[in-house]
């Protein structure tokens, strides 16, 4: 089954490759679309939901769109598999927890997906590592064009692409960039990020977007305005203004740590490395914190015996659902913490041996 296959891999988007990859974890563009002639999902009958799935899935499965797509039924799926998809950012939490006929088509690169019957009939999504919004826009725009040749979208000459919630109307575009900012966090300057984003009316959220708090060292910056601006203008705010600015702040904060507080920096990253190397039981939150510091240590060359690929793999695989898939067992919280510590120890030992 596709989800079991997926769960064994890290996902390209987490590879740390791509422009500004030491700080920009990933970039994502999502487009909201609805099929003309159907009500939005709040008013759709079960039969209409079914038709929408068949219609959209049919076009993705056929040769109408580039690439190969695999459809999975989210309604019928067991909860652990749903959570795997959420942890990989292939579906939203809302989609996993939704009701009625719904699903997701996943591209064979494991990074692109089309949610069917989420809040809108279609939610197209392309995710890549690093700051690569131009490339992502080209791809998702092409996918949108391909689908549009077969599907008539709900479109209004004044309001553009019509969406179930008026906050998405117009372009239906949501650009999100995920950032790793341990330097600003350690320096106590994270407020700068909120300020930079606020200047351009962008939102700052946590790792899983809407409804998740911006805690820890990972932050997701996304646009709010979808109407009255072109897709290019919205993307350019990120590409040319806000992301380079935040990256510059983070670089400066890291540089200051290296030059002015090297002992404090090393103490922090090596303690985290030590905790990961030796813990016998460790929670998700504690793992995230230490992995974040380890990633900083590796990126700054303070720790050389671990490579970035291993750190990235640990980020993905130590999440609750991935961990259970890996162990091939349902585990309660306590068991997960033990299994997580075991897995981390094993992977770090292997990495050191290389």
């Amino acid at each position, binding site marked *: 089954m596709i989800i079991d296959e997926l769960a064994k891999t890290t996902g390209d988007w987490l590879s740390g490759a791509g422009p500004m990859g030491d700080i920009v974890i990933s970039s994502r563009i999502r487009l909201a679309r609805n099929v003309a002639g159907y*009500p939005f*999902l709040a008013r759709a009958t079960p039969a209409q939901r079914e038709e929408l799935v068949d219609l959209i899935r049919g076009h993705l499965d056929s040769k109408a769109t580039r690439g190969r797509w695999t459809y999975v039924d989210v309604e019928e799926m067991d909860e652990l598999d749903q959570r795997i998809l959420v942890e990989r950012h292939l579906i939203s939490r809302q989609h996993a927890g939704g009701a009625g006929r719904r699903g997701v088509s996943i591209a064979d690169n494991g990074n692109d997906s089309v949610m069917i019957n989420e809040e809108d009939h279609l939610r197209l999504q392309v995710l890549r590592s690093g700051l690569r919004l131009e490339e992502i826009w080209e791809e998702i725009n092409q996918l949108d064009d391909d689908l549009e040749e077969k599907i008539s979208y709900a*479109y209004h000459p*004044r309001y553009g692409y019509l969406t179930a919630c*008026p906050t998405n109307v117009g372009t239906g575009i949501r650009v999100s960039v995920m950032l790793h900012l341990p330097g600003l966090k350690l320096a106590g300057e994270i407020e700068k990020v909120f300020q930079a984003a606020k200047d351009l009316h962008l939102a700052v959220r946590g790792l899983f977007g809407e409804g998740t708090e911006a805690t820890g060292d990972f932050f997701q910056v996304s646009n709010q305005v979808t109407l*009255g601006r*072109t897709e290019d203008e919205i993307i350019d705010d990120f590409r040319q203004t806000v992301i380079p600015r935040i990256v510059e702040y983070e670089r400066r904060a890291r540089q200051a740590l290296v030059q002015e507080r090297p002992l404090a920096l090393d103490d922090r990253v090596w303690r985290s490395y030590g905790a990961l190397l030796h813990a016998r039981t460790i929670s998700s939150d504690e793992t995230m914190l230490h992995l974040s510091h380890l990633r900083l240590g590796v990126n700054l060359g303070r720790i050389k015996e671990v490579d970035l690929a291993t750190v990235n793999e640990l980020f993905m695989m130590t999440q609750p659902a991935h961990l259970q898939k890996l162990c091939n067992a349902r585990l309660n919280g306590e068991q997960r913490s033990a299994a997580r510590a075991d897995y981390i120890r094993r992977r770090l030992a292997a990495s050191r041996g290389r």
Partner: protein
Amino acid sequence: MIDEARIFRTLAGFGKGGLDMNIACQACKKQPATVHLTDITPQGEKRERHLCESCAAAEGIMPKPSGHVPVNELLAGLVVSKAGAQQLADLACPHCGMTFVEFRNNGLLGCPRDYDAFEKALVPLIERAHEGAGHHIGKVPSRLGAPRSTENDLVRLKRQLVKAVEEEQYEEAARIRDKIRIRESQ
């Protein structure tokens, strides 16, 4: 000769101390000027004017509201600020049966036609959610062909013009203005 190529800025758009507060309105010469216009001539020269809000409004120049507000707040604000709550409550989409009250309660519309059925009530909400914007200027489905996109092109070009003037790229601004003229004469 002043052209239609014009940009206005309001004080609200600037940080504290970013602008001299003491300029008097050039029209009434009494109120402090808070709306700042830059006109460009067909030769690409710029001319600045400074007006107070009421004189600017008299000329038909209205600053747009700014600041994003989450949808729930938008909805809440809508009921308080707009009189005729009963009128809103009676709104219903003839196509899907969704009432405006229902939309207000769950934040999601019932069908694409709600945008027209609820237009009066939705427009202020949409504008507040999108920094004052009320028109789509982005991608147009290719099946609709070129003719329908002309209007969008025009809005987009006008925005580009404003941006060029803001950045003081007057040659570029003049070029864009010529494009707008061509489109408008078509």
